């Protein structure tokens, strides 16, 4: 019997694994190989240059700038998205009136759930194109147009949004505007994730807390948050990957794709320029490999830090 099971499992897995190896793992390996060459991308001639591309990476000013912009997103995207998602999930599940029916969400929470989740069903490029209209910097832009009508924005001096490189808290404004989109489009999904986790917390724990006189503030910080720790940790890792990408938003939303004047340059935009404009595929592959290594290290670190005793209900 066991023999048959093994054959059954192998039969199911062989094809997906083969496809995965060929279409995912093999290109990865190829890219790593190209990163050790001076391949330009348009011919079949290439020379082995060893680790030259990686050495060059360390002294590349643009890459350094892009790296710090990615770090900015790496810190802020998970922080704001999770905070907002937790807040919404708490309100929708346990933030409502406390009565004899026990714990419930605020009035109309089912509808809110659908609304908040909605951005998740849109592709990131669609989201970016939509936000282009919202951020448009004349009176036809949704925000600028409204604010001009009520007289809060001077038509001679509209809000520049993603064309604004002026630093806010030491970070170019364009990055903050991009962050807003990332958080808006991400929060809904994590709200649903946290909602599901919250619903699996037994109601009697809350009831006990309420009986002991805990208000919403204490229920959240003393009961909900500790019991969601594991889910939040996973969300943090996911959002970290999203923060390291951000390519679609930068590509569609910013002037000269990484502008104005490199103010929103990220790893992926520099990589794209190096490969496809400058025709230095070898060097661009080295950037890709470096980013992949960085991502893996980060994920490993994150999972290690948050590993902890698990509570079973």
């Amino acid at each position, binding site marked *: 019997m066991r023999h048959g099971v093994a054959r059954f499992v192998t039969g199911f897995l062989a094809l997906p694994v083969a496809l995965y190896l060929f279409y*995912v793992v*093999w*290109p*990865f390996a*190829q*890219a790593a190989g*190209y990163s050790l060459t001076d391949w*330009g*991308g*348009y*011919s*079949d*001639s290439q020379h082995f240059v060893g680790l030259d591309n990686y050495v060059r990476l360390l002294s590349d000013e643009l890459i350094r700038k892009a790296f710090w912009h990615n770090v900015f997103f790496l810190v802020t995207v998970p922080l704001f998205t999770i905070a907002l998602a937790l807040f919404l999930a708490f309100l929708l599940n346990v933030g409502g009136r406390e009565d004899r029916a026990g714990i419930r969400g605020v009035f109309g929470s089912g509808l809110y759930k659908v609304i908040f989740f909605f951005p998740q069903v849109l592709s990131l490029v669609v989201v970016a194109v939509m936000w282009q209209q919202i951020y*448009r*910097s*004349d*009176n036809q*832009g949704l925000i600028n147009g409204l604010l001009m009508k009520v007289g809060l924005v001077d*038509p001679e*001096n*509209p809000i*520049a949004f993603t*064309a604004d490189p002026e630093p806010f808290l030491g970070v170019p404004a364009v990055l903050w505007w991009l962050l807003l989109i990332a958080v808006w489009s991400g929060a809904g999904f994590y709200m649903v994730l946290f909602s599901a986790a919250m619903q699996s917390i037994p109601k009697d724990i809350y009831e006990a807390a309420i009986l002991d006189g805990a208000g919403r503030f204490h229920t959240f910080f003393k009961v909900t948050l500790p019991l969601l720790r594991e889910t939040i940790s*996973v969300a943090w*890792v*996911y959002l970290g*990957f*999203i923060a390291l*990408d951000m390519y679609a938003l930068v590509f569609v939303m910013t*002037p*000269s794709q990484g*502008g*104005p*004047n*490199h103010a929103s340059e990220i790893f*992926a935009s520099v*990589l*794209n*320029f190096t*490969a*496809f*404009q*400058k*025709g230095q595929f070898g060097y*661009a*592959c080295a*950037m*890709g*490999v470096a*980013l*992949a290594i960085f*991502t*893996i290290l980060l*994920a490993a670190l994150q*999972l290690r830090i948050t*590993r902890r*005793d*698990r509570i*079973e*209900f």
Partner: protein
Amino acid sequence: MSVTPEKPGDLSRRILLQRAAAAGLLAVPAAGLLSACAGSEPSKSDNNGGAAKSKDNPFGVKDGSAVKVVIFNGGLGDQWAKEDKTVFNAKHPNITVNMSSTQKIKTEEQPKMATQPSDLVMNSGADSMDRSTLINEGAIEPLDDLLTAPAWDGEGTVADTLLPGTVGDGTQNGKFYVVNVAYTVWGNWYNAALFKKEGWQAPTTWDEFFALAPKIKAKGMAPYVHDAVHGYYPRWGLFASIWKAVGKQAVIDIDNLKDGAWKVDGIVAALEPWEKMVKDKLLLPGNLNHTQSQQAWLDGKAAFIQVGTWLKNEMAATIPPGFELTLSDYWSNAGDKAAKDVFAGSGEGFVVPSKAPNKEAAKEFLRAILSKAGSAKFAELTKSLASTKGSGDNVQDSALASANALMKNASADLISVKFPDFYADLDKESQNLSEELMAGRLTAQQFVDKMQAAADKVAKDSSIKKQTRTA
């Protein structure tokens, strides 16, 4: 409720799913970036000789073969190319033309360049392949034999039929690589009907413009607008000013990365009117892109817009009735060295990949595009000039007529800038800095200093192959 330590043995289904999803997602950002770099094994293209060569078939195209042509479907559309297909098939009914059109030339064609490229690619638009890279990598074919081939339906050779500058524009390192099929004139557009109604005179100098500007503003219009998202739009105007004020040699020196080329007397002064335009708030507020800014101009929100002659075709659907698109030359200053030189040249370049399986047919198709019949259709359909002589002779159109008139009064030298084609880094920096200057974040002096620094950086970088411009 119990508290248990997490051991591999009691890995719950939920944890397993979380981990698996995490591992899957881990691959996502890296996958896109990494697989972008991966290619496939190169295959050798076989060239099994061609048919006999003749005056009607100078490249020896084989009957029964097929040719794959990729058209950039941008501001000019792609209908004109379909007409060229008809012209081609009239002479070669047994050759199949597989024509496709796209806006994503680089995205779709670059991955095939090293292995199995299309035969003829119109390398144009924002998503086009870097020309110097193509040439340096030996990825595209020199087309000097096309120039010496007989013209499709006229006297002389193909070269004889081309407008001035077309051969030079397509030449790099002494060889002719890029066949530009459109002829573009750049300048400041205005609505002649509006100017007549208001009694405004279209300015020819900066002084006249700055005198007219307050009158335009009084009508609730911005005097000027341009695409502020793609840096090469404002860059045209900046370089027109440099060329007109300091002369051709100054721009040639800039293109050749000559030491101190940006520090030549007069360059800062040439750019100062643009700085003044920003400082005096004569630009339409907002960072509009090309179509948004062009629409704003058509809607009467701004009096002038700087762009090329593809404008009419690009905006054809939304031009209000009675709106007379009229092109005028970039403004100059008294004492300019080359005030009469016009910013014009050929563009929309076709290339033949070195590994293309049917290069003969690709060249033959180019001959058809450059034919009299094909060029006339091009001008008629796109309201732009073709790069061949006399293409617009029979087209009635105010935009085309004003461009024609401008070219008639132009001196022999045409304004052109080569370094953006030569060096991708400098192209990007100059676009960024042009945007910054026109956003008021740089003065003309700072712009010049930063351009010099960027040029020096490219000049010193030994990994970048250097190009030379002679004329």
